[in-house]
C-alpha cells in the first residue's frame, strides 16, 4: 500500500505503558515502520547502542533518567537518530535546555495530535536517512580523494 521505507525503526520511550501502547497502535496503523517500545530509558539506551534506530520519541519525566539526559546520550551514541521529546510538563526552561543540549528535532506536548505526530515521524525518518546517506557519500568521496592523491603521487614518481 505504502512504498515508504519499511526498514526504518521508531523507538518510543516512556515509563507509562499507557503512552507507549497508544503511540505504538497509531504508528503501526498509519506508518510502515517497525515500532519498539521501552518503559526504561536505560534498557532503551542499551538497545539503541546495539542497533540504532531512525527516530526516537522520549518522554520528559521518567524515574531513572529524564528525557533530556536520555536524548543527550542517544545523540552521543547515534548521531543520525532523530530526537523527539514528548512532554506533559512544558516549561520554557526545559524546552530551551532540550533544544540547546540535545539538538532536539521536535518538542511535542501531551496531549499530542496524531496528525502532527505522523508528519513529524515521517519527516524524522527521512531526515535520519538523509544524514546516513550524506555520511556514506562523504566517506566515499574521502576515500576516492585518497585514492586519487595516491595515483597522482605515483604518476609524478613515474615521470620524474
Amino acid at each position: 500500500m505504502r512504498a515508504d521505507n519499511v526498514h526504518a525503526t521508531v523507538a518510543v520511550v516512556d515509563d507509562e505503558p499507557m503512552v507507549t501502547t497508544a503511540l505504538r497502535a497509531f504508528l503501526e496503523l498509519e506508518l510502515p515502520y517497525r515500532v519498539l517500545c521501552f518503559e526504561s530509558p536505560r534498557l532503551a539506551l542499551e538497545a539503541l547502542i546495539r542497533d540504532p534506530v531512525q527516530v526516537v520519541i522520549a518522554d520528559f519525566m521518567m524515574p531513572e533518567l529524564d528525557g533530556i539526559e536520555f536524548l543527550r546520550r542517544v545523540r552521543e551514541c547515534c548521531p543520525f537518530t532523530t530526537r523527539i521529546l514528548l512532554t506533559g510538563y512544558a516549561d520554557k526552561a526545559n524546552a530551551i535546555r532540550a533544544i540547546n543540549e540535545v539538538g532536539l528535532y521536535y518538542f511535542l506536548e501531551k496531549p499530542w495530535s496524531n496528525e502532527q505526530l505522523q508528519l513529524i515521524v515521517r519527516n524524522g525518518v527521512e531526515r535520519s536517512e538523509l544524514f546516513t546517506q550524506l555520511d556514506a557519500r562523504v566517506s566515499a568521496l574521502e576515500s576516492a580523494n585518497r585514492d586519487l592523491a595516491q595515483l597522482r603521487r605515483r604518476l609524478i614518481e613515474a615521470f620524474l
Partner: protein
Amino acid sequence: MSGVADVSRPDPDELEALRAENARLRAAQAELVNATRMSSMGLLVAGIAHELNTPLGALRSNRDVLSRALARLQEILADEVVDASELADVRRIVAAVNGVVAVDEDALARITAIVASLGGYAEGGRSDVELLDVRAALDSALSLLEHERGPDVAITRDYGAVPLVECLGGQLHQVFLNLLRNAFQAVGQRGTITVRAHAPAEEVVVTVEDTGPGIPPQYLERIFQGGFTTKGARVGMGLGLLISSQIVERHRGRIGVRSEVGRGSAFLVHLPLGAVRPGHPGRPAQTETTPAPPASPSDTSAGGPR
C-alpha cells in the same frame, strides 16, 4: 510606624493610632494568607493538569486510532470481498484496536483515581467538620504531588493504627500538602521522604521527614512566621508554614520541627483526640488554646528516630 520610638508614656491618641496600625497589619496579613492559599491552589491545579495529560493524551490518540481503524475496515469491506493481502491488513488493524481498548480502560481508571483524590481538596473552601483518616489524606496529598517528585526520590510510609480525627478535612489536607511540598522541594532530585502517622497517647501525630539540606538553627524560629523563605522568589511566598500552623492551632494542635543541617528536617503535626472542636474558620486561632509555641525547635514528644 514612625512614632513608635517614644513609648515611655503613650498618650491616648498614639495608642489609638497604634491600634489602627495593628488592625491594618492584621488585615494585610490575612490578605496575604488568602493570596497564598490561592497560589497554592494554582500549583495544585497545574499539578492536576499535568497528571491528567498522560491519560488524556492516550485517550485522545486512541479515539483517533479507533476512527481510523474503522474507516480502514470499511474500506476493505466495501467490495464485500476480503482477499489474502487484505486479510493481513485486517489482522494488523484488529491487533492495534485490541491494544487501544485495553489502554483506554487504564486511562479512564487513572482519571477516576485522580478525581477521587481531589475529594478532600474540593471541600477545602467549606467548613464542614468531618471524621478524617489522616493516612488516607496523606496518601491523597502524595498522589497529587507525584509530578513534583524528583527522579531519585523514595517515599516511605510508616502508618500505625490511627483513629479518625474530627476536623475540618479540607484544611488539614492543605496542611499535609504544604508540608509534603516543602519536603519535595527540600530533597530536590534525590533523597527520601518518610511519612508517619501514629497515635501515641490521646493525640494523632503526623510526621513528614525529608533528607534535604536541613534548616540552620538560627532560622528555625522564623520559619513559621509569614514572609520567611530561603527558597527563592519563584518557589513560594513563605507563607505555607504560617498557614499550616494557623490551621493546626485552630484544631487545638501544634506543629513542631526538628532539623539538622546536612541530615534533613522533620515536621510533626500533633492533633489532640477527644473533644476536638475546631475553631471557626476564617477567624484567627483562639487564644485560649494551649499556649504551645508554633515552633518548638527541640521537639522530642513524638515521632520515630531521625
